[in-house]
């Protein structure tokens, strides 16, 4: 079904298309540029120059590795929620809160009516797509995750904040489609955390995507999948991009109990380990996937964004993904 949709959109992909979840590590020169920009040592334009250089590096690298559907690598983003909060009306930057250990981030505060002020990611998508003939995914964070990872002051409850965000994020989706994006990924990693709110996340996705001409993917990871499956199949998207390897492929057992009905981007390498898994291990994960899932519904990628890995590790892990997919295509 979704192959037909891709065909209608003018996209032909091989069996077991390879892709990545979204983020890649920032090269050292970009990390330095970001630090220098924060200290006001360089201008925004100088920072953007470094971001473009890094984006081009990752586009070229993905082409070189033979990845089928590319991403821009999110070289211009610090955090997947704060970035959108900074570019939308109705948010203010909150103070620092702890993520884990000695890591902290600025958690946004929804303090007014949320409004889309204009394209947020479109210029970056155009830049990345302009560098390659392969399809580049449009990449957004979904309304539910933006809501869940923000403080909410100006809406009476979580649902109303989420639906207001969904309406505004739809405008970004429309802008990406207008610019030419045909595959759009709307990340909802927070979905797996409060199973009771899955209906809200699904309702928000309807608001964001209904009736729009694109192949939609949503990424979900690290949570109580057993509590949101099969309910998560109701997401109005074509493809669920799921972390599988970190949790020992245990979702496959759920798929055997209740048939999986969408395309899937199947995570075959763990992103939370420095170790680059051996080829037979990665191939075996994919082989197990294909025992349960129809081959023409499976895309192949890492579990999650690779931004926490080194550049070398990220490249090696993407190489593993491509090698395994190629080995099992025939």
């Amino acid at each position, binding site marked *: 079904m979704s192959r037909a949709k891709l065909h209608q959109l003018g996209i032909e992909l091989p069996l077991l298309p390879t892709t990545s979840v979204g983020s890649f590590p920032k090269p050292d020169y970009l990390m330095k540029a970001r630090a220098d920009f924060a200290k006001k040592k360089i201008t925004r334009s100088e920072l953007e120059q470094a971001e473009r250089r890094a984006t081009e590096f990752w586009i070229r690298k993905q082409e070189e590795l033979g990845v089928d559907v590319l991403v821009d690598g999110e070289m211009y983003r610090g955090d997947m929620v704060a970035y959108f909060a900074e570019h939308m009306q109705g948010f203010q930057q909150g103070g620092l809160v702890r993520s*884990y250990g000695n890591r902290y981030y600025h958690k946004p505060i929804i303090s007014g009516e949320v409004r889309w002020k204009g394209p947020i990611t479109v210029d970056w998508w155009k830049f990345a797509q302009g560098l390659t003939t392969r399809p580049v995914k449009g990449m957004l964070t979904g309304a539910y995750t933006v809501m869940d990872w923000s403080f909410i002051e100006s809406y009476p409850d979580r649902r109303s904040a989420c639906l207001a965000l969904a309406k505004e994020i739809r405008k970004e989706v429309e802008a990406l489609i207008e610019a030419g994006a045909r595959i759009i990924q709307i990340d909802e990693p927070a979905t797996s955390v409060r199973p009771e709110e899955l209906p809200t996340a699904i309702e928000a996705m309807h608001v964001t995507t209904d009736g729009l001409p694109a192949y939609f993917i949503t990424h979900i990871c690290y949570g109580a999948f057993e509590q949101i499956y099969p309910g998560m199949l109701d997401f109005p998207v074509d493809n669920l991009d799921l972390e599988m390897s970190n949790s020992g492929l245990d979702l496959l057992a759920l798929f055997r109990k209740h048939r999986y009905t969408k395309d899937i981007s199947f995570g075959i390498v763990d992103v939370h380990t420095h170790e680059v898994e051996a080829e037979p291990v990665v191939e075996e994960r994919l082989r197990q996937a294909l025992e349960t899932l129809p081959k023409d519904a499976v895309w192949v990628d890492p579990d999650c964004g690779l931004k926490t890995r080194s550049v070398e590790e990220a490249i090696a892990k993407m190489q593993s993904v491509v090698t395994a997919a190629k080995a099992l295509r025939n």
Partner: protein
Amino acid sequence: MELVLANHSSYPRIGDDAGHQLLRRTIAQRDKGEKTDQDVRAAEDRLTELALEEQIAAGLDLVTDGQIRWYDPVSHLAGKLAGVHINGLLRFFDTNFYFRQPVVKAPPRRSEPLLLEEFNFARKRSSRPVKVVLTGPYTLTRLSIQSQDGAGSFEKLLEAYTSALAEEIAALAQAGATFIQVEEPAILRSPKDFTWLEQSLKTLAARRGAARLALAVYFGDPAPLYDRFQTLPVDALVLDFTYSPGLVDTVAQKGSSKVLGLGLVDGRNTRLEDPASVARQIEQVARRTGLNQAYLNPSCGLEYLPRDRAQLKLRQLAAIKKTFLGSHA
């Protein structure tokens, strides 16, 4: 009803000012070999002092050390027990905060004090009584994984964690702790395990000496278990009211045989509560239950908030109390 203003447990260990970033900076420098573990301890001491000062300045009657030294609510305790190794990161309930998961290689055993030194440090620097907070054995068990040569069944592991924490509670009570809070958020997700929780708390309660022992639950609706919580061998129940719009009515209707910690101020969101509205809720509880005393505290630890907002929340507790007392004047 006497209203005692209390912190819940944690407090931000960072802020936007340079002074509040001392600990983050020192740990980063230690990791690069530029500072020592001793420097980190000194930074932890300083941030603990600041946390105590801010709680006292906000008018709290019962303070905590802010859990400034805790890597997270799980590994800080489990990691000090013999038989336990600390592994990768996992999300802490429905927050966007991650803890390191304990891997149990052998039945956990207390081979050194866990919180005694931290309690003694805070007590010496606080003009107000210091509440000691421990993540409870049931929650530690739920959040651990057992290796093949671990403690055995879930029940055996719970017993081992319970014994270890019971020893710590006895030591804390002996050292002068007057209020010990055992946190068991995991029970709200697995109410079928209530009997196990009850057995574990019996063991802990037997070692509390003269201290007041409280059970704290949060990140879920305690209303369905409210009647059963009343039967537990604890002196106080510290409840999160933010997940349960009907909890005030439940408490008012059923009363309480325990002192209550009213978590009516949201420790997870920056929006400030309206003092009049919260005071009305307290009034409802006071009128219907006839309790002589209750604690007013945030719904959970304040570490989920930026420091400036955490401070405002604490001051809001005092504003709520003032409004509540005003309505009684």
